[in-house]
């Protein structure tokens, strides 16, 4: 669409499963008649001959020959709609039309404003009680969110965040954490075809003030605070960014269980190491929430036992090479690592960076590495350029130190750990700014 504005007639080719999304994006950009041509899904894994057959075949969305759509899109005369585009105001009211409780619940469900579980209706009284736990004005802008980078961002206020917090069943004292998550700019309802979830880690005094669980069952449904803060983050993400609708604003092929909730706190008291937020520039008496875009995979293990190095190497190889892990250790495991000489988290991260290796051939064959990192390598950006120059059989390091995170969580009922897809740390937001 930017090329059209630059005076260049353009046709964008998509696969058919993206039809609704592509048309929705075009409309939201004021250019609903943008010329689009479609080929069948998938393109990945198809031979040159099979792709040539796509070009010779029909556009599965428009039902006409693909080539005709392509050539017509560049050469057919424009009409009035093409010449003006489409301008319109979109507004959302502060309050909905009053209605019965049952009908309002139905409206919320049918409008796609829930996560398909019952919600608490955001009455004026409930929202006012929620707002009482922040010093920020209800009409203050908190930030903007969008499901993916090519869609427009929607803006929202403190009150709108409080509305979604009420819907999730959160208690008012949780609001500063939820506001900090909303202010991150990171959506908990990313549209990626890879089905990203956003993992949230809470640190600092707020954990105990609001009863967050960082002990037994911290990653499970055993804490009202963990459960409803995570749910609120999901609801506010979808509602404040303009939706999370399959085929239109959500394209995760398989979806992700962690999209329901992936919020937990670090067990700072039982950890032998400094808390995660302190590693990243905050003081221990500050509270912060860190958000990681990932959640694709989980690898589980126990120990460290005699063969822990082999287990860790295999586990790191099993992680997606595009996204390094959040290594979540029970305090028992963390303390045992200290006995092995890892007296700082960074030492364990450095060990993982050194030993997480794959043959270059296998690393570069990964779909997301090929799509997202290969262009950087070709552009000479390090360390990818050096990794691309390696012999295909050379075992290369697959993660940078900043790709791996170590956190301590759990109640010491077992010497267990998880490697959880986390990728680069996206952002750490100070909660105290939202009290």
């Amino acid at each position: 669409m930017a090329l059209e504005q630059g005076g260049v007639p353009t046709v964008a080719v998509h696969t058919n499963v993206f039809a609704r999304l592509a048309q929705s994006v075009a409309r939201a950009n004021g250019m609903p008649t943008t010329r689009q041509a479609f080929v069948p899904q998938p393109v990945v894994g198809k031979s040159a001959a099979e792709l040539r057959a796509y070009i010779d075949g029909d556009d599965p969305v428009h039902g006409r020959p693909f080539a005709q759509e392509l050539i017509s899109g560049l050469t057919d005369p424009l009409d009035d709609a093409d010449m003006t585009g489409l301008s319109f105001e979109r507004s959302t009211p502060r309050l909905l039309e009053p209605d019965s409780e049952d009908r309002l619940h139905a409206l919320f469900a049918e409008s796609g404003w829930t996560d398909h579980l019952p919600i608490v209706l955001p009455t004026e009284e409930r929202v006012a009680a929620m707002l009482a736990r922040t010093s920020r004005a209800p009409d203050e802008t908190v930030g903007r969110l969008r499901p993916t980078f090519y869609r427009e961002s929607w803006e929202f206020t403190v009150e709108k965040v409080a509305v979604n917090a009420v819907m999730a069943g959160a208690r008012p004292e949780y609001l500063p954490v939820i506001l900090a998550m909303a202010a991150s700019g990171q959506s908990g309802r990313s549209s990626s075809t890879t089905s990203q979830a956003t993992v949230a880690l809470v640190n600092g005094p707020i954990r105990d003030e609001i009863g967050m669980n960082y002990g037994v069952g911290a990653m499970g449904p055993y804490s009202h605070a963990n459960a409803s803060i995570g749910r609120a983050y999901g609801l506010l993400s979808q509602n404040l960014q303009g939706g999370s609708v399959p085929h239109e604003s959500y394209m995760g092929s398989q979806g992700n269980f962690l999209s329901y909730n992936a919020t937990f706190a670090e067990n700072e008291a039982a950890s032998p190491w400094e808390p995660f937020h302190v590693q990243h520039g905050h003081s221990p008496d500050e509270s912060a929430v860190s958000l990681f875009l990932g959640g694709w995979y989980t690898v589980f293990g126990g120990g460290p036992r005699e063969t822990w190095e082999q287990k860790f190497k295999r586990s790191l190889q099993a992680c997606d090479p595009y996204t390094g892990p959040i290594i979540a250790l029970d305090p028992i495991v963390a303390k045992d690592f200290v006995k092995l000489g890892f007296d700082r988290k960074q030492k364990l991260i450095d060990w993982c960076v050194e030993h997480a290796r794959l043959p270059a051939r296998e690393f570069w064959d990964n779909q997301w590495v090929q799509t997202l990192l290969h262009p950087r390598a070709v552009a000479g950006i390090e360390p990818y350029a050096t990794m691309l120059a390696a012999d295909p059989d050379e075992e290369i390091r697959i993660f940078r130190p900043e790709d791996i995170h170590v956190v301590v969580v759990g109640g010491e009922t077992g010497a267990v750990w998880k490697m959880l897809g986390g990728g680069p740390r996206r952002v750490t937001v100070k909660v105290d700014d939202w009290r």
Partner: protein
Amino acid sequence: MNRKLAVHDPRGYPPRVTGKRLAPRLESLSGKVVYLVDCLFDNSDVFVGQLRDWLGERFASADLRLIKPRESWVDDPDMRARIEADGDAAILGVGL
């Protein structure tokens, strides 16, 4: 249960949509510079290569140029400037 409740709308505030016109179309691709943009999705280079061959067989006088953005998922103003400077048309494939 018939009592009416006033509740908040949970949605954020969308930006205003401003209409934008399409660029004037060509009479034909013959003799024109057409950029084929490989959007860097997995295997899109093979698709775009096939598209270039297909167009070349039918529009022998068209100047068909393959081009790639510097990275996936980011805007590349330099690439756009190059297309706008000497391109008559563009085809983006495959992806958004």
